[in-house]
Protein backbone atom coordinates (compact mmCIF):
# COMPACT_ATOMS: atom_id res chain seq x y z
CA UNK A 1 0.00 0.00 0.00
CA UNK A 2 1.33 3.40 -0.92
CA UNK A 3 -0.30 5.16 2.02
CA UNK A 4 -0.54 4.25 5.66
CA UNK A 5 -4.12 3.37 5.14
CA UNK A 6 -5.87 0.12 5.57
CA UNK A 7 -9.38 -1.10 5.86
CA UNK A 8 -10.86 -2.05 9.21
CA UNK A 9 -10.31 -5.72 8.55
CA UNK A 10 -7.77 -7.48 6.40
CA UNK A 11 -8.89 -8.74 3.04
CA UNK A 12 -8.59 -12.46 3.39
CA UNK A 13 -10.37 -15.07 1.35
CA UNK A 14 -12.77 -17.22 3.26
CA UNK A 15 -11.52 -20.78 2.91
CA UNK A 16 -13.08 -23.95 4.26
CA UNK A 17 -10.78 -25.86 6.55
CA UNK A 18 -11.00 -29.05 8.58
CA UNK A 19 -11.19 -28.66 12.33
CA UNK A 20 -10.95 -31.35 14.98
CA UNK A 21 -12.99 -31.63 18.15
CA UNK A 22 -10.56 -31.67 21.09
CA UNK A 23 -12.97 -31.33 23.99
CA UNK A 24 -16.72 -31.25 24.62
CA UNK A 25 -18.16 -29.37 27.58
CA UNK A 26 -21.70 -30.01 28.77
CA UNK A 27 -23.06 -26.54 29.58
CA UNK A 28 -26.73 -27.30 30.24
CA UNK A 29 -28.95 -30.24 29.39
CA UNK A 30 -29.49 -28.83 25.89
CA UNK A 31 -26.25 -26.96 25.31
CA UNK A 32 -22.69 -28.08 24.73
CA UNK A 33 -19.49 -26.27 23.92
CA UNK A 34 -17.20 -27.76 21.30
CA UNK A 35 -13.51 -26.93 21.68
CA UNK A 36 -11.90 -27.14 18.28
CA UNK A 37 -8.38 -27.31 16.96
CA UNK A 38 -8.21 -25.23 13.78
CA UNK A 39 -4.76 -25.61 12.20
CA UNK A 40 -3.31 -22.29 11.03
CA UNK A 41 -6.15 -20.25 12.56
CA UNK A 42 -5.47 -16.57 11.84
CA UNK A 43 -7.09 -15.31 15.03
CA UNK A 44 -10.42 -13.60 15.47
CA UNK A 45 -12.08 -10.68 17.23
CA UNK A 46 -14.58 -11.19 20.09
CA UNK A 47 -18.08 -11.29 18.60
CA UNK A 48 -17.19 -12.82 15.23
CA UNK A 49 -18.72 -16.03 13.95
CA UNK A 50 -17.85 -18.99 11.75
CA UNK A 51 -19.74 -21.00 9.18
CA UNK A 52 -19.68 -24.73 9.57
CA UNK A 53 -20.49 -27.27 6.87
CA UNK A 54 -21.48 -30.87 7.40
CA UNK A 55 -21.51 -33.35 4.55
CA UNK A 56 -23.60 -36.53 4.75
CA UNK A 57 -22.45 -39.80 3.21
CA UNK A 58 -24.75 -39.21 0.24
CA UNK A 59 -23.13 -35.83 -0.40
CA UNK A 60 -25.92 -33.72 1.08
CA UNK A 61 -24.50 -30.61 2.72
CA UNK A 62 -25.86 -28.41 5.47
CA UNK A 63 -24.30 -25.12 6.47
CA UNK A 64 -24.87 -23.05 9.62
CA UNK A 65 -23.33 -20.09 11.39
CA UNK A 66 -22.18 -20.20 15.00
CA UNK A 67 -20.66 -17.48 17.12
CA UNK A 68 -17.21 -17.98 18.55
CA UNK A 69 -17.40 -18.14 22.36
CA UNK A 70 -13.67 -18.24 23.05
CA UNK A 71 -11.49 -15.14 23.27
CA UNK A 72 -8.68 -14.54 20.79
CA UNK A 73 -6.23 -15.35 23.58
CA UNK A 74 -7.26 -19.03 23.73
CA UNK A 75 -5.62 -21.69 21.63
CA UNK A 76 -8.76 -23.72 20.95
CA UNK A 77 -11.81 -22.29 19.24
CA UNK A 78 -15.02 -22.70 21.26
CA UNK A 79 -18.47 -22.93 19.71
CA UNK A 80 -21.47 -23.18 22.01
CA UNK A 81 -24.34 -25.08 20.43
CA UNK A 82 -27.92 -25.34 21.62
CA UNK A 83 -29.83 -28.36 20.48
CA UNK A 84 -32.81 -27.11 18.50
CA UNK A 85 -35.83 -29.37 18.37
CA UNK A 86 -36.18 -30.80 14.84
CA UNK A 87 -33.00 -29.00 13.82
CA UNK A 88 -30.95 -30.40 10.99
CA UNK A 89 -27.49 -29.63 12.31
CA UNK A 90 -27.56 -28.87 16.02
CA UNK A 91 -28.78 -32.35 17.17
CA UNK A 92 -25.80 -33.86 15.35
CA UNK A 93 -23.38 -31.38 16.91
CA UNK A 94 -24.79 -31.81 20.41
CA UNK A 95 -25.50 -35.54 20.45
CA UNK A 96 -23.41 -37.33 17.85
CA UNK A 97 -20.12 -35.49 17.67
CA UNK A 98 -17.23 -37.02 19.62
CA UNK A 99 -13.73 -35.91 20.55
CA UNK A 100 -11.48 -36.59 17.56
CA UNK A 101 -14.22 -36.03 14.96
CA UNK A 102 -13.60 -33.52 12.21
CA UNK A 103 -15.79 -31.18 10.22
CA UNK A 104 -15.44 -28.20 7.89
CA UNK A 105 -15.38 -24.64 9.13
CA UNK A 106 -14.56 -21.22 7.69
CA UNK A 107 -14.00 -17.90 9.36
CA UNK A 108 -13.71 -15.68 11.21
CA UNK A 109 -16.61 -13.79 9.67
CA UNK A 110 -18.12 -10.38 10.36
CA UNK A 111 -16.42 -7.24 11.64
CA UNK A 112 -19.59 -5.49 12.72
CA UNK A 113 -20.71 -7.22 15.93
CA UNK A 114 -17.26 -6.92 17.49
CA UNK A 115 -15.79 -5.51 20.67
CA UNK A 116 -12.18 -5.42 21.84
CA UNK A 117 -10.42 -3.91 24.85
CA UNK A 118 -9.29 -1.10 22.54
CA UNK A 119 -12.89 0.19 22.40
CA UNK A 120 -13.31 3.02 24.91
CA UNK A 121 -16.31 3.34 27.21
CA UNK A 122 -18.53 1.05 29.25
CA UNK A 123 -19.62 -2.29 27.84
CA UNK A 124 -23.25 -3.29 28.13
CA UNK A 125 -24.15 -6.80 27.04
CA UNK A 126 -27.67 -8.15 26.84
CA UNK A 127 -28.13 -11.86 26.15
CA UNK A 128 -31.04 -14.20 25.73
CA UNK A 129 -30.38 -17.95 25.98
CA UNK A 130 -27.54 -19.18 23.80
CA UNK A 131 -27.14 -15.61 22.51
CA UNK A 132 -24.64 -15.36 25.34
CA UNK A 133 -21.96 -17.04 23.17
CA UNK A 134 -20.46 -14.06 21.27
CA UNK A 135 -20.85 -11.87 24.38
CA UNK A 136 -18.93 -14.45 26.39
CA UNK A 137 -16.05 -14.10 23.93
CA UNK A 138 -16.05 -10.36 24.75
CA UNK A 139 -16.16 -10.95 28.52
CA UNK A 140 -13.45 -13.61 28.38
CA UNK A 141 -11.29 -11.31 26.26
CA UNK A 142 -11.83 -8.49 28.76
CA UNK A 143 -10.90 -10.78 31.67
CA UNK A 144 -7.78 -12.18 29.95
CA UNK A 145 -6.55 -8.66 29.26
CA UNK A 146 -7.39 -7.58 32.78
CA UNK A 147 -9.00 -4.32 31.71
CA UNK A 148 -11.41 -2.55 34.02
CA UNK A 149 -13.83 -0.56 31.94
CA UNK A 150 -17.27 -0.82 33.56
CA UNK A 151 -19.14 -3.79 32.15
CA UNK A 152 -22.61 -5.14 32.65
CA UNK A 153 -24.15 -8.36 31.45
CA UNK A 154 -27.91 -8.64 31.57
CA UNK A 155 -28.70 -12.27 30.87
CA UNK A 156 -32.19 -13.66 30.31
CA UNK A 157 -32.67 -17.41 30.71
CA UNK A 158 -35.69 -19.61 31.21
CA UNK A 159 -34.48 -21.10 34.47
CA UNK A 160 -31.33 -21.33 36.54
CA UNK A 161 -30.58 -24.70 34.93
CA UNK A 162 -30.64 -23.03 31.51
CA UNK A 163 -27.97 -20.47 32.39
CA UNK A 164 -24.94 -21.19 30.21
CA UNK A 165 -21.44 -20.55 31.68
CA UNK A 166 -23.06 -19.92 35.07
CA UNK A 167 -20.09 -20.75 37.28
CA UNK A 168 -17.60 -18.99 35.05
CA UNK A 169 -19.75 -15.84 34.98
CA UNK A 170 -20.16 -15.90 38.77
CA UNK A 171 -16.42 -16.32 39.23
CA UNK A 172 -15.66 -13.51 36.79
CA UNK A 173 -18.03 -11.15 38.61
CA UNK A 174 -16.56 -12.09 42.03
CA UNK A 175 -13.03 -11.34 40.84
CA UNK A 176 -13.89 -8.10 39.09
CA UNK A 177 -15.71 -5.27 40.89
CA UNK A 178 -16.13 -3.45 37.57
CA UNK A 179 -18.23 -6.27 36.12
CA UNK A 180 -21.85 -6.81 37.05
CA UNK A 181 -23.76 -9.89 36.00
CA UNK A 182 -27.52 -9.61 36.32
CA UNK A 183 -29.73 -12.61 35.65
CA UNK A 184 -33.40 -12.70 34.91
CA UNK A 185 -35.17 -16.06 34.89
CA UNK A 186 -38.27 -15.84 32.76
CA UNK A 187 -40.03 -19.14 33.40
CA UNK A 188 -38.91 -20.76 36.59
CA UNK A 189 -37.17 -19.26 39.59
CA UNK A 190 -35.62 -21.30 42.37
CA UNK A 191 -37.00 -20.88 45.85
CA UNK A 192 -35.72 -17.73 47.49
CA UNK A 193 -34.53 -16.25 44.17
CA UNK A 194 -33.74 -12.60 44.71
CA UNK A 195 -32.98 -11.69 41.12
CA UNK A 196 -35.36 -10.71 38.36
CA UNK A 197 -38.02 -13.18 37.30
CA UNK A 198 -39.48 -11.73 34.14
CA UNK A 199 -38.74 -10.85 30.55
CA UNK A 200 -36.63 -7.78 29.90
CA UNK A 201 -38.82 -4.69 30.15
CA UNK A 202 -38.32 -0.96 30.47
CA UNK A 203 -38.03 -0.89 34.28
CA UNK A 204 -35.48 -3.67 34.20
CA UNK A 205 -33.38 -1.80 31.65
CA UNK A 206 -33.81 1.52 33.43
CA UNK A 207 -32.76 -0.08 36.73
CA UNK A 208 -29.58 -0.83 34.95
CA UNK A 209 -26.73 1.11 35.11
CA UNK A 210 -25.48 2.91 32.06
CA UNK A 211 -27.51 6.02 31.29
CA UNK A 212 -27.25 7.30 27.72
CA UNK A 213 -24.83 10.06 28.77
CA UNK A 214 -22.14 7.51 29.56
CA UNK A 215 -22.12 6.32 25.96
CA UNK A 216 -22.01 2.59 26.59
CA UNK A 217 -21.23 0.20 23.75
CA UNK A 218 -24.31 -1.99 23.66
CA UNK A 219 -24.41 -5.50 22.22
CA UNK A 220 -27.62 -7.51 22.21
CA UNK A 221 -27.73 -11.14 21.10
CA UNK A 222 -30.59 -13.56 21.39
CA UNK A 223 -33.88 -14.60 19.90
CA UNK A 224 -35.51 -12.04 17.62
CA UNK A 225 -38.25 -11.20 20.12
CA UNK A 226 -35.77 -10.35 22.88
CA UNK A 227 -33.49 -8.36 20.59
CA UNK A 228 -36.35 -6.27 19.19
CA UNK A 229 -37.85 -5.64 22.62
CA UNK A 230 -34.55 -4.66 24.25
CA UNK A 231 -33.24 -2.50 21.40
CA UNK A 232 -36.58 -0.69 21.06
CA UNK A 233 -36.72 0.03 24.79
CA UNK A 234 -33.13 1.25 24.90
CA UNK A 235 -33.90 3.74 22.13
CA UNK A 236 -36.95 4.89 24.14
CA UNK A 237 -34.67 5.36 27.13
CA UNK A 238 -32.54 7.73 25.06
CA UNK A 239 -29.73 5.53 23.79
CA UNK A 240 -28.41 6.28 20.30
CA UNK A 241 -29.53 3.59 17.85
CA UNK A 242 -26.03 3.59 16.35
CA UNK A 243 -24.47 2.56 19.68
CA UNK A 244 -26.66 -0.55 19.82
CA UNK A 245 -25.44 -3.55 17.87
CA UNK A 246 -27.71 -6.53 17.57
CA UNK A 247 -27.50 -10.11 16.47
CA UNK A 248 -30.74 -12.02 16.19
CA UNK A 249 -31.30 -15.68 15.80
CA UNK A 250 -34.41 -17.54 14.86
CA UNK A 251 -37.25 -18.71 17.08
CA UNK A 252 -35.64 -21.43 19.15
CA UNK A 253 -38.38 -21.54 21.73
CA UNK A 254 -37.47 -18.57 23.88
CA UNK A 255 -40.67 -16.80 22.90
CA UNK A 256 -43.02 -19.45 24.21
Amino acid sequence: MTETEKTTAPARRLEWQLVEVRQIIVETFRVKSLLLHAPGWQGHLPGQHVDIRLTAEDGYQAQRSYSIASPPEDELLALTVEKVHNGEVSPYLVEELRVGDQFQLRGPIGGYFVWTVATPGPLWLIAGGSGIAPLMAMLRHRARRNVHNPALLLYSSRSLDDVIYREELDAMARRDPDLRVVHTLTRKQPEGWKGYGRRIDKELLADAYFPPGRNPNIFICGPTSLVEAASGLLVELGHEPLTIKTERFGPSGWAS
Partner: protein
Amino acid sequence: MTGNDSDLVLDGNAAAGLLQEIFVLEITTAQIQCEACGSTGAVGSLRLHAAPMGAVLRCPHCDASVMRAARTPHGRWLEMTGARCLRFLAVRE
Protein backbone atom coordinates in the same frame (compact mmCIF):
# COMPACT_ATOMS: atom_id res chain seq x y z
CA MET B 1 -25.88 -16.72 16.42
CA THR B 2 -27.42 -20.01 15.52
CA GLY B 3 -29.23 -20.15 12.23
CA ASN B 4 -31.03 -23.41 12.53
CA ASP B 5 -34.02 -22.83 10.33
CA SER B 6 -34.77 -21.30 6.99
CA ASP B 7 -36.71 -18.10 6.37
CA LEU B 8 -35.46 -16.35 9.45
CA VAL B 9 -35.29 -12.65 10.06
CA LEU B 10 -31.78 -11.91 11.24
CA ASP B 11 -29.20 -9.14 11.12
CA GLY B 12 -27.12 -8.36 8.09
CA ASN B 13 -24.14 -9.64 10.01
CA ALA B 14 -25.55 -13.15 9.59
CA ALA B 15 -25.20 -12.86 5.79
CA ALA B 16 -21.52 -12.06 6.17
CA GLY B 17 -20.32 -15.46 5.02
CA LEU B 18 -22.36 -15.38 1.83
CA LEU B 19 -21.44 -11.75 1.05
CA GLN B 20 -17.80 -12.13 2.02
CA GLU B 21 -17.44 -14.79 -0.68
CA ILE B 22 -18.00 -11.95 -3.15
CA PHE B 23 -16.28 -8.93 -1.57
CA VAL B 24 -12.56 -8.59 -0.94
CA LEU B 25 -12.94 -6.00 1.85
CA GLU B 26 -14.81 -6.49 5.12
CA ILE B 27 -18.46 -6.19 4.14
CA THR B 28 -20.35 -6.04 7.46
CA THR B 29 -18.78 -2.72 8.47
CA ALA B 30 -19.19 -1.16 4.99
CA GLN B 31 -21.67 1.74 4.97
CA ILE B 32 -24.65 1.34 2.68
CA GLN B 33 -27.08 4.08 1.73
CA CYS B 34 -30.73 3.24 1.15
CA GLU B 35 -32.09 4.62 -2.12
CA ALA B 36 -35.62 4.84 -0.78
CA CYS B 37 -35.13 6.80 2.45
CA GLY B 38 -31.54 8.01 2.18
CA SER B 39 -30.41 6.65 5.53
CA THR B 40 -26.92 5.21 5.86
CA GLY B 41 -25.75 2.39 8.10
CA ALA B 42 -23.47 -0.62 8.31
CA VAL B 43 -24.37 -3.64 6.19
CA GLY B 44 -24.26 -5.61 9.44
CA SER B 45 -27.13 -3.53 10.80
CA LEU B 46 -29.51 -4.26 7.91
CA ARG B 47 -32.46 -6.57 8.48
CA LEU B 48 -31.76 -9.91 6.89
CA HIS B 49 -34.43 -12.21 5.58
CA ALA B 50 -32.57 -15.48 5.21
CA ALA B 51 -33.69 -18.35 3.04
CA PRO B 52 -31.82 -21.53 2.12
CA MET B 53 -30.56 -20.20 -1.19
CA GLY B 54 -29.74 -16.67 -0.23
CA ALA B 55 -30.53 -13.47 1.55
CA VAL B 56 -32.62 -10.35 1.20
CA LEU B 57 -31.27 -7.38 3.15
CA ARG B 58 -33.68 -4.61 4.06
CA CYS B 59 -33.22 -1.09 5.38
CA PRO B 60 -33.84 -1.05 9.18
CA HIS B 61 -35.51 2.36 8.86
CA CYS B 62 -37.93 2.02 5.92
CA ASP B 63 -37.85 -1.73 5.18
CA ALA B 64 -36.94 -1.20 1.52
CA SER B 65 -34.89 -4.01 -0.01
CA VAL B 66 -31.32 -2.83 -0.58
CA MET B 67 -29.35 -6.02 -1.33
CA ARG B 68 -30.21 -9.47 -2.54
CA ALA B 69 -27.65 -12.26 -2.66
CA ALA B 70 -28.05 -15.87 -3.70
CA ARG B 71 -25.88 -18.90 -4.26
CA THR B 72 -27.19 -21.10 -7.07
CA PRO B 73 -25.76 -24.13 -8.88
CA HIS B 74 -25.01 -21.77 -11.77
CA GLY B 75 -23.16 -19.15 -9.76
CA ARG B 76 -23.52 -16.41 -7.22
CA TRP B 77 -25.91 -13.50 -7.64
CA LEU B 78 -25.72 -10.11 -6.07
CA GLU B 79 -28.33 -7.49 -6.87
CA MET B 80 -28.24 -4.02 -5.32
CA THR B 81 -31.10 -2.07 -6.83
CA GLY B 82 -32.34 -0.11 -3.85
CA ALA B 83 -28.90 0.93 -2.64
CA ARG B 84 -27.43 4.27 -3.59
CA CYS B 85 -23.86 3.47 -2.67
CA LEU B 86 -21.59 1.25 -0.63
CA ARG B 87 -18.63 2.78 1.18
CA PHE B 88 -15.80 0.69 2.59
CA LEU B 89 -14.34 2.52 5.56
CA ALA B 90 -10.65 3.20 5.77
CA VAL B 91 -8.80 3.96 8.98
CA ARG B 92 -5.53 5.84 9.16
CA GLU B 93 -2.91 4.51 11.48
